[in-house]
């Protein structure tokens, strides 16, 4: 990245400059505290015993670190009548997210490839329809979707949820790939056609090897969307097929027994770990791809 910032201190005395820089760093530090505080509180709370939580304060470090809450959250906390922790639901989320991400990314890549490189009469209209589909509030499809899943015999099942996530993820994956492929010169496709390659050959040999950056974006986007989804999860699942977000909400809001804040926090962190992990590992590429698109557009 080229350095386009510039010194705010031109023509100012060194003392003033120092003061300004200090204020700048203090401000940045305060904001960093604001963003970090909830995570900090979650972690410390999850490591405290209930007694300590009741007597101590929110921001203090645990006097005695205990992982009991984590164990309970993982395999013993109650989500309503069941008391198996978030483990089975964590697994459900994986079983939903992994296939849904793969399928919607693959279809989105092919759609984007067609819309960007194999235009035909109506392909732009298709794209506009797809794009608008990204923006609808999903409430507007909840009722009919519930009935259609029933008709298809997949109501309350994991395949049913995969199906829903694929359908409503296509708009974004198509958009990502279309915007990426549209920047690849169409002469490349032409050259390959003259070389004798067909539709899939060109996709496979030329476009797919170029697509790693945008595949990363699409996969991260879809994974966080699907992993973090609550609306579809709570609407279209039943007791055994709920994703982890729904289970977390049930644990936190379950009214039976003593309120175990440390377990709530541990469960919340567990539910957040996969997307946090993805963000820390690959977030750089995601932001790069995402902002590149939005600045261009």
């Amino acid at each position, binding site marked *: 990245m080229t350095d386009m910032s510039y010194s705010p201190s031109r023509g100012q005395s060194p003392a003033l400059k120092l003061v300004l820089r200090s204020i700048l760093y203090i401000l940045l530090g305060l*904001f960093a505290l604001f963003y970090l505080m909830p995570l900090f509180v979650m972690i410390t709370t999850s490591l405290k015993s209930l007694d300590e939580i009741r007597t101590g304060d929110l921001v203090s470090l645990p006097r005695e670190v205990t992982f009991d809450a984590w164990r309970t959250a993982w395999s013993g906390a109650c989500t309503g009548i069941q008391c198996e922790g978030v483990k089975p639901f964590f697994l459900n989320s994986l079983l939903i997210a992994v296939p849904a991400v793969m399928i919607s990314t693959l279809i989105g890549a092919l759609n984007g490839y067609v819309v960007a490189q194999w235009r035909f009469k109506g392909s732009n209209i298709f794209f506009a329809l*797809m794009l608008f589909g990204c923006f609808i509030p999903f409430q507007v*499809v909840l009722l009919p979707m519930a009935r259609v899943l029933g008709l298809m015999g997949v109501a309350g099942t994991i395949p049913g949820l995969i199906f829903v996530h694929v359908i*409503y993820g296509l708009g974004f994956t198509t958009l990502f790939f279309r915007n990426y492929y549209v920047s690849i010169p169409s002469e490349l496709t032409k050259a390959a056609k003259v070389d004798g390659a067909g539709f899939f050959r060109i996709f496979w040999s030329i476009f797919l090897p170029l697509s790693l950056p945008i595949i990363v974006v699409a996969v991260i986007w879809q994974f966080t969307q699907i992993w973090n989804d609550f609306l579809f999860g709570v609407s279209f699942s039943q007791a055994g097929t709920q994703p982890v977000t729904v289970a977390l909400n049930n644990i936190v809001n379950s009214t039976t027994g003593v309120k175990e804040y440390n377990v709530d926090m541990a469960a919340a962190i567990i539910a957040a770990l996969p997307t946090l992990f993805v*963000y820390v590992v690959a977030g750089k590429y995601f932001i790069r791809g995402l902002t590149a698109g939005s*600045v261009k*557009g």
Partner: protein
Amino acid sequence: MTRWLQDNMPKIVLAPSFIAVMVFVYGFIAWTAWVSLTRSRLMPRYEIDSFIQYERLASSPRFEVAMTNLFIFGALFIVIAMVLGLLLAILLDQKIRTEGAIRTIYLYPMALSMIVTGTAWKWILNPELGIEATVQGWGFANFEFNWLVDPDMAIYTVVLAAIWQSSGFVMALFLAGLRSVDEEIIKAAQVDGIPTWRVYSAIIIPSMAPIFLSAFIVLAHLAIKSFDLVIALTGGGPGYATDLPATYMYAMAFSRGDIGQAASSAMVMMLVVFAIVVPYLYSELRTKDD
């Protein structure tokens, strides 16, 4: 036959997605729109019967609260997230040595589920053991911060948590925008002796108009769809003080068994999104076609 396949392969590849979009997006919107004009209750009915459901919405105090909340929440959330995002972006644009780390800290909430965010803030804001108790424990016995359980203030906790979650993303958008401004223009301004704040206010920020628009669209869209955050943070309460159209719709559909109300409130949400997004998409697609 193979020749036909070859020539039509692009269309064949798009066909399943096209059908899916037509059925599962536009068909379903049509279905919901249709049902919103019937007297459906527990089961959908298909005899159109005027705007009865919309009249019920209009006279429902709970929906009125939900719409009021949407506008309060939406306006505050969008404005504050944009201002904060822009401020953070400008601060970070001053050759900060630890920029990468700070950016990561500002951005990570974006990776979290709204349910996680809601759970965390619910714990922090709860009056018995959260911030209020903590500050009181420090000796400020009169400190009060019980917004979460105050029907008049609870919606602002939703605003707070939503801003915490999304402002980093806005910052990233703006930061990219600041850096995409032509370096030569900035140099020219510096040579002309224009002060830094004027360079930002008169040159850089105006040139980022498209990014403001993108950020606005993303935030507005998030605000209207907000559902999980409210569920996790306040459950719509106290009472229905923090209901949004999204939670209203869900309550009608899945706990009250009032499909007519669910469909009509979903359509109202749809129309709000429509009013914001359609002009945007129209201008986007039109300029891109040129």
